[in-house]
């Protein structure tokens, strides 16, 4: 049976033909809108072109100019700052929530839906609401909460010192959107809120695959909650964690809409919210420098590629597939 007969060989090629027919629609679209543009974008990055005039070959000039441009460097720094703070926070918080949701609780699906809702909402509508929450002119929700929190802390201080300390803390409203050093933190807050639900759902799927017998065995051995988490949960969900970390990182590197909407079409004060995609968008569709913008997009691609490779290397050591 292992030696292919003439008939089996023939049927293999017939199957190959049909397989390619089944893949044809996907092939055509990916070819036109993914494979071809990947190459074209790379070639374009060596040219100057404004979409109407002639293309001129400039070699590596676009790339050289990119790395001389302080705004582009700022875009790289801002984007990295955003990615490497928002992704770990989101992952830790959502793993924590997922573990809580995975305990034997009622109304699990309602809680899950509650956390999931931000993820399915349009980034434009969601950012619009946050813009309103960040508002400065005395009626922003965030400032109101911080004010209340200050009152609460002061009240506790007053009680604990038996009336000795009055108005320990004072709070003046923060102009969230007009402070350049707060631009990225604002985006991080917004993004943690928005992305958590997706991670929770995926983590839950991973957690449900951990066999309960392992926990029972550990309990017999007198393992603590932390030990069970550290030595059973964490290793067994490592493929899920790996998947989420890659997906989140790639997604976070591409942040655009939130900045665009939160700062009304600008990258924030002093380019404080200038991200790599914003930069590419601005150069391409603001200044019509298609070649230069393509070079910027390729640098972004390269950075994502490098970080994905690094993560894959780490995962080889840390991810345990059962």
């Amino acid at each position: 049976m292992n030696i292919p007969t003439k008939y089996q060989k023939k049927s293999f090629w017939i199957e190959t033909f049909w397989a390619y027919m089944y893949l044809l629609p996907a092939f055509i679209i990916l070819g036109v809108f993914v494979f071809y543009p990947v190459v074209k974008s790379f070639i374009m990055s060596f040219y100057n072109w404004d979409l109407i005039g002639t293309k001129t070959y400039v070699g590596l000039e676009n790339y050289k100019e990119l790395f001389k441009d302080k705004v582009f460097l700022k875009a790289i720094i801002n984007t990295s700052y955003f990615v490497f703070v928002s992704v770990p926070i989101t992952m830790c918080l959502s793993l924590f929530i997922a573990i809580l949701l995975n305990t034997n609780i009622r109304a699990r699906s309602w809680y899950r839906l509650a956390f999931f809702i931000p993820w399915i909402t349009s980034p434009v509508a969601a950012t619009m609401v946050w813009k309103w929450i960040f508002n400065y002119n005395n009626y922003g929700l965030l400032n109101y909460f911080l004010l209340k929190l200050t009152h609460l802390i002061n009240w506790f201080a007053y009680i604990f010192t038996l009336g000795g300390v009055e108005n320990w803390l004072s709070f003046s409203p923060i102009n969230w959107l007009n402070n350049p050093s707060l631009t990225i933190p604002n985006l991080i807050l917004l993004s943690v809120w928005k992305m958590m639900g997706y991670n929770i759902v995926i983590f839950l799927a991973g957690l449900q695959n951990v066999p309960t017998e392992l926990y029972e065995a550990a309990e017999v051995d007198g393992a603590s909650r932390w030990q069970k988490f550290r030595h059973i949960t964490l290793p067994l969900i490592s493929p899920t964690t790996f998947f989420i970390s890659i997906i989140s990182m790639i997604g976070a590197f591409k942040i655009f809409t939130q900045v665009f909407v939160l700062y009304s079409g600008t990258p924030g004060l002093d380019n404080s919210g200038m991200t790599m995609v914003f930069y590419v968008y601005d150069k391409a569709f603001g200044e019509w420098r298609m070649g230069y913008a393509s070079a910027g997009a390729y640098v972004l691609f390269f950075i994502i590629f490098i970080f994905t490779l690094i993560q894959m290397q780490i995962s080889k050591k840390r991810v345990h597939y059962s």
Partner: protein
Amino acid sequence: MGYQIKEKIVRFTVYLILTVGAVFVLLPFFWMLSTSLKIPSEIASMPPKWIPSKFMWENYKIAWNAAPFARYFFNSFYVAIACTFLELITSALGAYAFAKMDFFGKNVLFIIFLGTMMIPGEVLLIPNYITIIQLGWVDTYKALIIPWVVSVFGIFLMRQFFLTIPKELHDAAKIDGCSRFRFLWQIIIPLSKPVLITAALFKFVGSWNAFLWVLIVTNTPEMRTVPVGLSFFSSDVGTDYHLLMAASTLALMPILILFFFLQKQFIQGITRSGLKG
């Protein structure tokens, strides 16, 4: 402390954390809804009013008529439904080939397909925009739909699910003289309902929420979808937050309703396919 009391405290803490967390996560939506129903003088009131003293349902009518929202919604629905429907077809066909057929170059091709998931769409933005111009598709539905009717993620998701369908079923069907296409259409597809719903929802939501691409390839209000329309609306009405929030609420409703009814199947699709990593 007894084991049972300790267990009760833990359970209480779990509920407390989850409830507080859920309240904070949903608060922005409640705030949006509440603002959308306020009279302008109440918007800026301090302390904030959580429940408007008078429910101004007219705000929705004013917002709806202040921009061609009917058109934006039609466009969004049309594009999202078309994208989802076509994507399900291309993904099911592709996933079937990868899961159930043995063919030349299968593994290499699969890796190439998966590799495209790593490419940031922004790298493709400029050349694709140029392609759209060359095809004369600027400001048409074609530009909004056709580039998005294939999703490698969808193919991957469905393949993982199709793989769990036993080979014996295929063999039995083959013996009974069932063609490949009929097998896919009449046996695999009905069995794969959860994963089809998951893939469809992912696509629908992605399509409904798409922003940058729509912003670039449309230039008349007639072709805008809800998110892009909303962002233009926001600069038009400026700080009329009650109108902005009314429009934002409207923009969220279709997706929320869809999820409310389909969340069970959606989660099932994720859990039962390979998405867990």
